[in-house]
């Protein structure tokens, strides 16, 4: 039991899942920049090359197009590549292969070939990193048909969802919220038990309001829920975990109780996944809504350098404000959720 009850961080859970799968599945290969002797810049692959050898855990030259593209070739021949991009901000050269090949191979060959690839990348802000190291652009990838986008928000979900992603027959972009890589520890038994993909997790039950969040924002969202609870409001908190495809049913089930919803994400607002979730909610549950779906998001700005990132990231205060907008909305009342002055063109020109 002792080994099984080890208390670990999210990044250690990633390592644990990679090690488990490398050990049981000879088809798994892990590669990326600095993942060998260095163990990855966040240490997510710490010790793996030593343990499984440089033939299965490989440092690549510095080229993301190559990383994304060779994974496609490997996967078509039955390997299970797990490729690391050092930061989400450096995936883009690989986009051609992810979008035009990995996500389409099955369809293009009518099922003859497939791409069971996991592309991993640390993502998100809040660690005072340099430029290009803090973005959240999950919506760009969620837009790609044929691709799964998965984001864990706890050590246990990192372990279970990464196992599931590696075992999944289709390509997965697995985004690791680096702000909470080491934020919390939790016992994660190394039992090889995967968690289901395409299923949302209800992290907290409540009947007054539904808060939807993923990745690092789950932390502030749970904090906001605690504060609301102190004021007698019980929020249900849902982590979709798989962002694409989206388990809208769990959200709708919750809304049937709560009738009010706030979606929280670090990513920019315009075309962010909050928009997709709100659209699906109004398609499936227009009649149960007592208030417009609120979005609490990053601004539609370039992710700022770290001096201003605190002002950019949605914190507890902003989530609470969004919650109150949802709770206090009434159809006839004066407090429309979207600022009327803005819609009337009354906002000041800066």
């Amino acid at each position, binding site marked *: 039991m002792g080994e099984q009850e080890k208390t670990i961080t999210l990044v250690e859970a990633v390592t644990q899942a990679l090690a488990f799968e490398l050990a049981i599945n000879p088809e798994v290969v892990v590669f990326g*920049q*600095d993942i*060998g*002797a*260095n*163990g990855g*810049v966040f240490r997510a692959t710490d010790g793996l090359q030593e343990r499984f050898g440089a033939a299965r855990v490989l*440092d690549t*030259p*510095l*080229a*993301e*197009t*190559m990383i994304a593209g060779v994974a496609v070739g490997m996967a078509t021949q039955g390997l299970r590549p797990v490729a690391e991009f050092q930061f989400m*901000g*450096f995936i*883009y*050269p690989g986009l051609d292969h992810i979008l035009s090949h990995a996500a389409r191979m099955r369809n293009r060959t009518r099922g003859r070939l497939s791409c069971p690839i996991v592309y991993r990348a640390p993502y998100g802000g809040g660690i*005072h*990193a*340099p*430029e*290009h*190291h803090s973005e959240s652009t999950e919506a760009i990838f969620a837009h790609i048909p044929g691709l799964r986008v998965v984001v864990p928000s706890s050590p246990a979900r990192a372990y279970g969802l990464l196992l599931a992603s590696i075992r999944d027959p289709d390509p997965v972009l697995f985004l690791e919220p680096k702000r909470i890589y080491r934020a919390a520890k939790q016992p994660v038994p190394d039992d090889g038990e995967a968690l289901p993909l395409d299923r949302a997790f209800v992290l907290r039950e409540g009947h007054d309001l539904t808060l939807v969040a993923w990745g690092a924002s789950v932390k502030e969202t749970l904090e906001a829920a605690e504060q609301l609870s102190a004021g007698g409001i019980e929020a249900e908190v849902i982590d979709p975990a798989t962002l694409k495809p989206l388990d809208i049913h769990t959200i709708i089930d919750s809304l049937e109780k709560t009738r009010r919803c706030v979606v929280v994400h670090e990513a920019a*607002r315009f075309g962010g996944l909050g928009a997709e979730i709100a659209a699906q909610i109004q398609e499936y549950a227009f009649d149960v809504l007592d208030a417009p779906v609120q979005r609490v998001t990053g*601004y*539609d*700005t*370039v992710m*700022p*350098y*770290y*001096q*201003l*990132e605190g*002002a*950019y990231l949605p914190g507890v*205060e*902003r989530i609470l404000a969004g919650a109150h907008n949802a709770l206090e909305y009434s159809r006839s009342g004066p407090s429309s959720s*979207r*600022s009327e002055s*803005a819609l009337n*063109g009354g*906002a*000041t*020109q*800066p």
Partner: protein
Amino acid sequence: MHKPRLQLQASFDIAHLQYLDNQGKATQPLPEFATPDWLTHCYRQMQLARLVDDRAVKLQRTGRLGTYPSTLGQEAIGIATGNALDADDVYCPYYRETGALLERGVTIEEILAIWGGDERGQNFQHSPNDLPICIPIATQMLHAVGVAFALKQRHQQEGAPLQAAVASSGEGATSKGDFYEAMNLAGVWKLPVVFVVNNNQWAISVPRHGQTATQTIAQKAVAAGIPALQVDGNDIVAVAWAVRDALQRARSGEGPALIEAISYRLCDHTTADDASRYRSAEALEQAWQWEPIQRLDRHLREQGLWSDAKQQDLDRELAATMEAALGNWHARVPEPVTAMFDHLYAQLPEGLYEQYDQLRDEQQQGADA
């Protein structure tokens, strides 16, 4: 087994340039530009770069600066490159370029601002056409080619003197498609652009031989049909000659060039890195034997151009320069948070006014609370 007869179609040579050996001894007569004044200027600037790096790393260690990439051991490349550029040339730097930026007139305060999480640092006051430092690896090389196209067009259409673009990078960057694509186009269009590669032997933890099976980085230019030279990157005279020569050819319409400058990263990759995880202490110790400042120091002393007294004066002068810069940097008024909207578009679109107001109000409430 049948062996066909083959005819040689192409072959190539890669030359290596050095003026000052490890001991600071001239291995051949120095070029004319290497006057005593020029040599002592370069020596001062290398010392300044080393001091800025040292203070920046310390500021990071005490939580006052973000991640910082030092140029320790590679100062000759940046100083020689920055020094060779004309004011009207355009520099497209990568991130490890404290020395070159100082030579371009970028202030210490600006450099600290960049790594201290303040975008204003990229608003280079003294080199307004230069590109900001570039973090997505190798992308700046393509930008430099576009810059060179613009410079050439300006020359042809407006009769302005032909100026050149220079892109810097590490050797790891030469694994990326952008690098090959940039050289290829520069060759086809015969553009005035010079690529300077700091081959410091490491790309974070990946050593040079884990990056490419090629014998030299310089020969990568051969495939693009552009001239290449390998230089001792810790010999500032050699780097300077190579960059000046390539620039002069570029400015006279002879097209692009690649320079591979061999050096060694004596520091961690950045302050976020711990090189002892992947690099032996012996390798590091050895590399210290041929670092560029000591080499030039030996040469200057041998020539009677340097002394302990001069060194003491210089140390005092540089310390005062650094203190003044730190003072200015500490005194900077933080940007208002709404600055994140101010330069998004030439004019903020109306659709963003609401977000702008929300951010400003939040900030105001935070300040009132």
